[in-house]
């Protein structure tokens, strides 16, 4: 295929190709909107206006983006080791349990900044624990990690529903959710941050988790490209056989990578659980684990790209909510369609335009004198 045509210049690979893929995804989304009898142009204006047009919208966009940064980082770390962690959904769900337990126990005693480190740790620990068995099975018994993590998503979901319905529920209440966390178990809003830009976030639950997410981006960057473990992860991901031959312990690398990945996915729970609803609810993850796959793919598994991709998905999510509000014929699920199309074109059909682009932009090796002489 295209590999023979030589490498593409970075601006094509990291800039033009994702933009082209996104454009196709949006064009098809527009077709869907047109097909159900609405104006795609109007829909797009409403979507953008709702997502980035005013303070509260931006607050919501960044709130959703925070979720996707965490899950995107989780998928990316696993990608670097050649592992496909499709279990972010379950790991984040369990992470919520870790965060909630900390918020419920310490939240009454301490202010938020003292609770937070424990909450981050708790969420990460529970998320990592949920990745442990799939990781260990992949490393030692060769069980396909995609399948085992999917299975663990469902096992996790069943476990959490059981715990919420039977154990964590407020006695006498109907809704399967924990009690509201005390002040010390909640993440404060980041209204002041956007206020610096003259924006008012009003009810948007944009909170400190966003900063935690950004810190994690730096941590992941340093881990992958600046530490020995990161080197081992990338070596194992590129060529496990060579890595083993070079003395990198395969089982340890796989398990540690997955624990980090699960931990990052678990931390995602901080945002909706401690930052927004201040209680643990059923199904709070809402597909963010799967969106993380698209975010990691579009961001080319680099933290900087992941932040950009996460914001894009945040815009889609928030804008889509507004869309269904202003144009009732377009239901909320239009967001899901757009997300799916973006995942399809930016993820699975990533290389659709590559052959064509390679023909135009590939760096051809300079013709050698011998060839030139013949011609």
């Amino acid at each position, binding site marked *: 295929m295209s590999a023979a045509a030589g490498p593409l210049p970075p601006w094509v690979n990291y800039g033009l190709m994702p933009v082209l893929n996104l454009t196709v995804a949006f064009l098809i989304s527009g077709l869907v909107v047109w097909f159900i009898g609405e104006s795609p142009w109007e829909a797009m204006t409403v979507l953008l206006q709702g997502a980035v047009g005013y303070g509260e919208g931006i607050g919501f966009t960044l709130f959703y983006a925070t979720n996707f940064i965490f899950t995107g980082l989780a998928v990316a770390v696993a990608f670097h080791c050649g592992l496909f962690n499709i279990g972010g959904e379950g790991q984040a769900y369990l992470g919520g349990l870790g965060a909630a337990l900390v918020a419920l126990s310490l939240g009454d005693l301490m202010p938020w900044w003292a609770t937070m480190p424990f909450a981050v740790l708790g969420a990460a620990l529970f998320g990592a624990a949920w990745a442990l068995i799939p990781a260990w099975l992949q490393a030692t018994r060769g069980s396909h990690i995609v399948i085992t993590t*999917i299975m663990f998503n469902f096992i996790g979901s069943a*476990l959490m529903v059981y715990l919420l319905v039977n154990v964590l529920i407020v006695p006498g209440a109907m809704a399967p959710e924990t009690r509201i966390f005390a002040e010390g178990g909640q993440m404060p809003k980041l209204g002041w941050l956007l206020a610096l830009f003259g924006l008012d976030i009003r009810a948007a639950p944009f909170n400190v988790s966003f900063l935690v997410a950004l810190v994690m981006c730096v941590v992941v960057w340093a881990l992958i490209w600046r530490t020995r473990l990161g080197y081992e992860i990338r070596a194992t991901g590129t060529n496990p056989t060579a890595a083993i031959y070079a003395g990198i312990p395969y089982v340890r690398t796989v398990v540690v990578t997955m624990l980090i990945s699960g931990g990052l996915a678990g931390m995602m729970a901080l945002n909706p659980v401690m930052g927004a609803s201040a209680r643990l609810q059923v199904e709070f993850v809402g597909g963010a684990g799967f969106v993380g796959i698209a975010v990691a793919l579009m961001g080319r598994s680099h933290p900087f790209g992941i932040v950009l991709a996460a914001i894009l998905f945040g815009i889609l999510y928030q804008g889509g909510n507004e869309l269904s509000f202003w144009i009732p014929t377009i239901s909320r699920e239009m967001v899901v*369609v757009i997300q799916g199309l973006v995942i399809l074109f930016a993820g699975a059909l990533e290389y659709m335009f590559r052959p064509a682009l390679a023909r135009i932009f590939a760096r051809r090796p300079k013709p050698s004198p011998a060839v030139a002489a013949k011609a």
Partner: protein
Amino acid sequence: MTLMEFLLLLRDAIPGGIRLAIPLIFTALAGLFSERAGIFDIGLEGKMLAAAFAAASLAFVTGSPWLGLAGAIVVAMAMSLVHGFASITNKGNQIVSGVALNFIAAGLTVVLGQAWFSQGGRTPQLANDARFGAWEWPAVDAIGEIPVIGWIYRFVISGQNTLTYLAFLAVPISWWVLYRTRFGLRLRAVGENPGAVDTAGISVTFLRYRAVLCAGFLCGFAGAYLSVAQSAAFIKDMSAGKGYIALAALIFAKWRPVPVLFACLLFGYLDSVAIRLQGKSMPFVGEVPVQIFQALPYILTVVLLAGFIGVANPPKAGGVPYTKER
């Protein structure tokens, strides 16, 4: 609950279990065709859902369950083509493609449903003759009097709908296609060693496309069963993870057609027992949370994958796009 009541409950869960197993059987067989040809299919869930929507919409508009089924098959096969285009032609990531199709199906069914029928993503209730009705077998009352056999005849064999019988027919047919035809031999070969198939002068691409189309065809039946046979309308997210349970059943059956049938029946039965046990206590054990039964198929599959119940060897070339040597 006494032991006797519990045993009766276990018996009464059988017919329901079969009904719950039917979509699993179709879908797991669909996955079988796809995965034996080396194409992972996480998108079974989405195909089933989209097919269910197409079946309910068409059956409502035309009043014919058969046209609904035909529409379901066309839609599911079209989705298979997209999956094939991404994972065979463009050598994209098969898992990502499947996840994308699941998203698209989950969203598009509701968006179109809302735009067409304005019932919050539901399709209108189907009249009885727009559905696949139950077949009443002859002499149910007479034969039903016989102890054990009569009960089986009355509640298991008789009174099922057309698609249920087709599901049980689909298992031997799939077995025959996969193990007794030239197409099946090549399909299995392309999932193990596509290079060898290519060397023999057979197109890997065409073969894999036909395999994913078979998968789409079967998913169409599963979807139609959900919305036109089991219920009488399409409801938002009505596949509710059945595509993944089918995937688990496929793995639990170690990628073989006849064990697929039994795995699906087992998982369907567990589901049926769980529904009946809700809020009741089991003898000797006490009340068992329903969630255990819900998680059991997945737990069993993980235990199997860990190599504690025999060895499950997936098709060797599964998930790897085939690149012809240059």
